[in-house]
């Protein structure tokens, strides 16, 4: 059972990181309204997935600690980043920065994807139908996030690189 817990722990870490990454990018890309709002929504999805993983952990005897919320310093930093980004948003370089952010997001989302695959396989092997349904639903959400990141990369690359 401990191995199940370990795997869930890893998955939890991947989702927490992904959520933090979405939040960071939202802050950095505040001048790009779509990226800003979608990333904030997707960060919230990651939080919810992380919570679901923690509940699953409890079922398998592993208590996973919830990530601590952002302290006041963090919140202030995020706001600062948002303001800086609005100013920077008027520079042409902002397209390149967006691409870099999307790349980081993609890697974090793929790390979660791999972890979801592993957990899904595990659920099958454990013959835990309830877990499997849950994992399939949440994994699909993660895959849609990846699809969104890819959409955004395709859309943003030419303008960022050619102009």
């Amino acid at each position, binding site marked *: 059972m401990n191995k199940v817990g370990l795997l869930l722990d890893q998955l939890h870490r991947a989702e927490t990181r992904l959520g933090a990454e979405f939040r960071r990018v939202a802050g950095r890309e505040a001048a790009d309204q779509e990226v800003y709002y979608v990333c904030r*929504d997707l960060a919230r999805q990651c939080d919810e997935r992380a919570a679901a993983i923690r509940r699953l952990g409890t079922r398998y005897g592993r208590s996973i600690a919830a990530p601590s919320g952002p302290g006041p310093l963090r919140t202030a930093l995020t706001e600062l980043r948002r303001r800086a980004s609005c100013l920077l948003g008027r520079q042409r370089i902002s*397209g390149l920065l967006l691409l870099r952010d999307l790349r980081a997001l993609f890697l974090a989302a793929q790390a979660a994807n791999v972890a979801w695959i592993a957990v899904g396989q595990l659920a099958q092997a454990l013959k835990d139908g309830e877990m499997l349904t849950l994992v399939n639903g949440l994994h699909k959400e993660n895959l*849609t996030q990846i699809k969104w990141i890819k959409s955004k990369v395709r859309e943003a690359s030419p303008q960022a690189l050619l102009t």
Partner: protein
Amino acid sequence: MTRPRSDDDRIADIWGPRTPYAAGERWPVRVDRFVPGLADEDVDRWVPSACVLCSNCCGMDIAVKDGRIAGVRGRAVDRINHGRLGPKGLYGWQANNSPDRLTRPLVRRRGRLVETDWDTAMNLVAERSRRALDRHGRLGLGFYNTGQLFLEEYYTLAVIARAGLGTPHLDGNTRLCTATAEWALVETFGSDGNPGSYTDIDTCDTLLLVGHNVAETQTVLWMRMLDRLRGPDRPRLVVIDPRLTPVAREADVHLAIRPGTNVMILNAILHELIARDRVDHEWVARHTVGFDALADVVRDHPPERAAEVCGVEAADIREAARIIGAGRRLVSTALQGVYQSHQATAAAVQINNINLIRGMIGRPGCTVFQMNGQPTAQNTRETGANGSLTAFLNFQNDEHVESLARHWNVRPIDIPHWWEPTHAMEIFRFCEQGSIRFLWVLCTNPAVSLPELHRIRSILDQKRLFLVVQDAFLTETAELADVVLPAAMWGEKTGTYTNADRTVHLSDKAVEPPGEARADLDILLDYARRMDLRDKDGAPLVKWSTPEEAFGHFAAVSRDRPCDYSGLSYAKLRDRDGISWPCNERFPDGRERLYTDGVFGTGADYCESFGHDLETGAANEPDEYRAHDPAGRAIIKAAHYKPPHEPVDEDYPLQLSTGRTVYHWHTRTKTGRAGQLQDAAPRVWVELNPDDARSLGVAEGDLVRVESRRGIVHGPARLTGIRPGAVFVPFHYGYWDRREAGPRTAANEVTRTEWDPVSKQPIFKVTAVRVVRVAGRRAPAPAPEAGRVPAAGAHTVEGRTP
């Protein structure tokens, strides 16, 4: 019953006298006419045309006297209006004769716009285009057009921008009005195009209107509905709208929801329909995919939850669902209350779903109308002058792109199709970033109509951006331009346009444009020549020089596509009044109703798009779509409700939505120059619920300030039947006709920059604001009477209901 009428007053009596009729009967004729001072026999010529002041495109004849437009009359034989005209149609033509028309090109010299000749202006436009191309590449140019050009002009513009310059940055202001209609149709039915016909109003027994104040936005369509509502077998009417609109006053059930909660209320209705088994299971199984997922999602949206979120009674939601579930011929419609709210496409698609699970589509009296705002918005979509590919082709489908390239005689790679064409808000974003350096604005006024105006003005005002504006008047946007090109208006040029039920009209040139003003098509053709745009064999890329030739080229491209014009010609359109596409060998007289066989445009090789995730806008991959090819079945897409991104809070406790009044159009460029219309609604106003007003210490007519995190707008308060917590400001009132400086009056000073992730339509209906009283009543609020309730805010209403 024909009642010829003369010179009616459509200001006081907006919808005119009733001509009630029963289901299945023909809507009676009533001819409206306004030709001041002239009897019919005094008119030199009557030129057949159609109104271009909303997406109805009512058939009308233009009266010509001494080479000038002297008036209009509705055409009795036209399938759209059976002779009727509303206030805008009846009076709006006077703008053509306005003394302040632009008659010569202008260029900016030492900071000021000065008159010049066409050669100088167009050479400058061409030179600056080439400079942007050389220095910044084809992605350094952008075009932002309108919903009011003709098909031939849009098509030419699409060819120039996409195949000639090779830029994906071409979109229309239709992005602000019909992008969600387009994408809601594409996501569900695989392709754009409203399934039904306006004659479905004649036979329906149930109407569901969501965020669609048709009484003010499409007055003549409302006359048709009202005549049914006054007829012997009145259809039941369910209205979802935060305001007590003239439509809502007629409703059996009016759900006055909180702005921004459309998905919640629609999911609750779907919940009830499914829970009470008002589902046509057999039809659903045969003609749709995705029902189970919908049932899963709406299970979480019972009426009790919706009642709380939307601020309405659960019993009213149930009653609405009961009426919809009992109807045997259901017509559902949507407009800006859905399209300009957050979760726009997700909500619009749920309206499709209501008709789908009831199996009510493709039969007389059974349809859904994803309405258009502007008169020729449909044509921007068909021609690809907005964010789509010409003829509803799919940019992710290589064969589609190849066929388009064959028609244009260019290489597929010359047509930018690496991603969806750039949407308007993104075009302005690229201008802000400095990666677009040349922007051509055709016949629209972003300096008043886009959200967050201080941002838009600062973008348009940049020195590094070369701004070309083509318009009939010196608009607020034109004043910021480097070159201004004077354009001919409707009635001064020939072309076709298509309304919200796919009816195509031909409008012939009736009079000459004033001074040196030119038809938009001629300006574009001139540009193509000066830019020396070539096809892959070195021949001129644009191979036509008249509207009729342009139409023929487009008709050929559209062959075998959903919007098939191949059976249409100018001769046929002159012969017959208003023909619906598709029109081809199979349907030589046009096809009134789509999907009559329950086969939709979703086949992988045929569809316009592989669709999107409704929540994020992530595009589906071609392989993924092909693996689950719906192959002609409609796609039921479900969506969870999400709260708006900018909720109300202590600082900004009210929710602002913007919109139109019956007398005006957009930024009043035309309607503000028609005396009757301008006098009927001369200045901005702020609509408040009487209870909210009381707690703010505001009385009717007091001057108030509406503040958001982005700006401030001023206007006199008007207490109406709007739901508590909501504020409404019409967005028509910019600054062109102001004689002295004063406080800001354009509603978009306070709106925010956010758009729907699928349709990319900006969100004008959900902005957190606060309202502050500035001064006591100076004069009565200048607002029109429509939408008026007694100050007590009760639900009994006097007013202009006929």
